[in-house]
């Protein structure tokens, strides 16, 4: 049995109409609902669909790679991330440049490059270089009989421990000591001769001959301390090298004073910006930027944000 037009709709008929099915006597209403659905329910424009899919991809959790296109809302974090990335890149580049220039980086900085799988040049790894220097020091000690451990021996040990030549002033100390020794011997002989003549007048000669004994003392102490470095840590060995170098300079200064020369300054100028410890570049390696290097960014790189 059909139903009359205008009759009250029951729930079943309403469900049928809203589901898009026909109901007897309600054809016009069913047609209207079908038109309503066809009029409003339409595929979004292709560009809108693309935009929405990209925005949805960018909103997914971080484990999923975002697509290049982003919504206006998500552009702000992108800009921040780009700036942070650029700053981090610049910092890494600057740090790597320091390493190339021969500067030993602190452990946290070196570790960061290690974790990133980047091998930095001119960096101590704390083991092989120190081990090599320790063996070299030991070889010098073993090859030098105790009777020959003089000033030059101390310098060789100091240079081996330091990993680089001693300053020119320190290296000249032994020569000056030998010259002082020769002069002392001459003066001692002369004094002894005078003593023979004048009794007790050889004191000056003994005094001038103290360069030799000071050099031997320096060599002996250096030898003893070097032997203590067998089980020392890399840092202790580095400290030993620096102290020995400083003692060699001090020895040279005292020798020069005895000879009447001004001697090297307490802190030699060429060492003023030397890296502490081993691993630095050879003498004469320029540290600053070359002359004429522009300070600004390369041409064509805008200063503003991308």
């Amino acid at each position, binding site marked *: 049995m059909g139903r009359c037009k*205008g009759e*009250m*709709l029951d*729930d079943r008929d*309403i469900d049928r*109409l*809203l*589901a898009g099915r026909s109901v007897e006597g*309600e054809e*016009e*209403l069913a047609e*209207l*609902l079908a*038109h*309503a*659905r*066809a*009029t*409003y*329910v*339409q*595929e*979004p*424009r292709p560009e*809108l*669909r693309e*935009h*929405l*899919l990209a*925005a*949805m*991809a960018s*909103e*997914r*959790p971080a*484990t*999923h790679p975002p697509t290049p296109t982003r*919504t206006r809302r998500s552009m702000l974090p992108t800009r921040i991330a780009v700036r942070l990335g650029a700053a981090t890149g610049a910092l890494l580049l600057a740090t790597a440049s320091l390493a190339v220039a021969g500067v030993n980086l602190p452990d946290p900085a070196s570790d960061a490059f290690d974790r990133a799988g980047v091998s930095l040049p001119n960096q101590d790894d704390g083991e092989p270089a120190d081990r090599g220097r320790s063996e070299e020091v030991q070889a010098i000690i073993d090859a030098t009989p105790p009777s020959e451990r003089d000033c030059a021996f101390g310098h060789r040990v100091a240079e081996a421990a330091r990993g680089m030549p001693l300053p020119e002033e320190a290296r000249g100390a032994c020569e000056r000591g030998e010259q002082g020794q020769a002069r002392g011997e001459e003066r001692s002989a002369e004094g002894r001769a005078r003593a023979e003549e004048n009794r007790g007048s050889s004191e000056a000669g003994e005094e001038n001959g103290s360069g030799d004994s000071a050099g031997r003392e320096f060599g002996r102490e250096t030898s003893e301390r070097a032997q203590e470095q067998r089980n020392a840590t890399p840092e202790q060995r580095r400290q030993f090298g620096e102290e020995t170098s400083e003692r060699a300079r001090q020895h040279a200064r005292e020798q020069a004073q005895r000879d009447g020369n001004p001697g090297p300054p307490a802190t030699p100028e060429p060492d003023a910006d030397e890296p502490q410890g081993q691993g630095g570049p050879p003498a004469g390696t320029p540290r600053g930027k070359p002359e004429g290097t522009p300070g600004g960014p390369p041409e064509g790189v805008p200063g503003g944000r991308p």
Partner: protein
Amino acid sequence: MAFGPTFPSVLAAARAGGDSAWAAIHDELAPALLGYLRARGAAEPEDVLAETLLQVVRDLPRFDGGEGEFRAWAFRIARNRLLDERRRRARRPVDPHADPGEPGPPAPDAAEEALGRIDAERVRSVLAQLSADQRDVLLLRLFGDLTVEQVAELSGRSAGAVKQLQRRGLAAARRALERGAVTLSSLGAL
């Protein structure tokens, strides 16, 4: 239902970040959501649609249910975003937008376009005769394929109130058709 038995796998793929799964969800939801938002008179229906879909993406990990629940959940979000838009626009005065809003872009063919405009105007005129609550309930059921219970839950009404609203709404639409909802003036632009 569009997905049917495949819905659980589509949902799992979407949770895993599958692009094709999200594209399928978009293609299934976006037309109906956009139609609902336009018919409800959203000032910027595409923006509200985008907010809705982004909310779906963000909250999907917390969703639990079948395809019907998923669809109802998406329409609940769209409805809430629409209310948000209206509150925002109420705070800053703008020229009032007719409710229901403009339908989607017309068909490219001139004849189809003319017929489409007649149908669109007819539909708009009929929908304009309904109260906002009647329109809301009927559009959720018609475009969202939602049950009375789902509409009741997402709109905060009882099932009986929803049934009453849809019955009265359809009765009002029928009366509008009998009166001739599309006037000559509305066809004057053709």
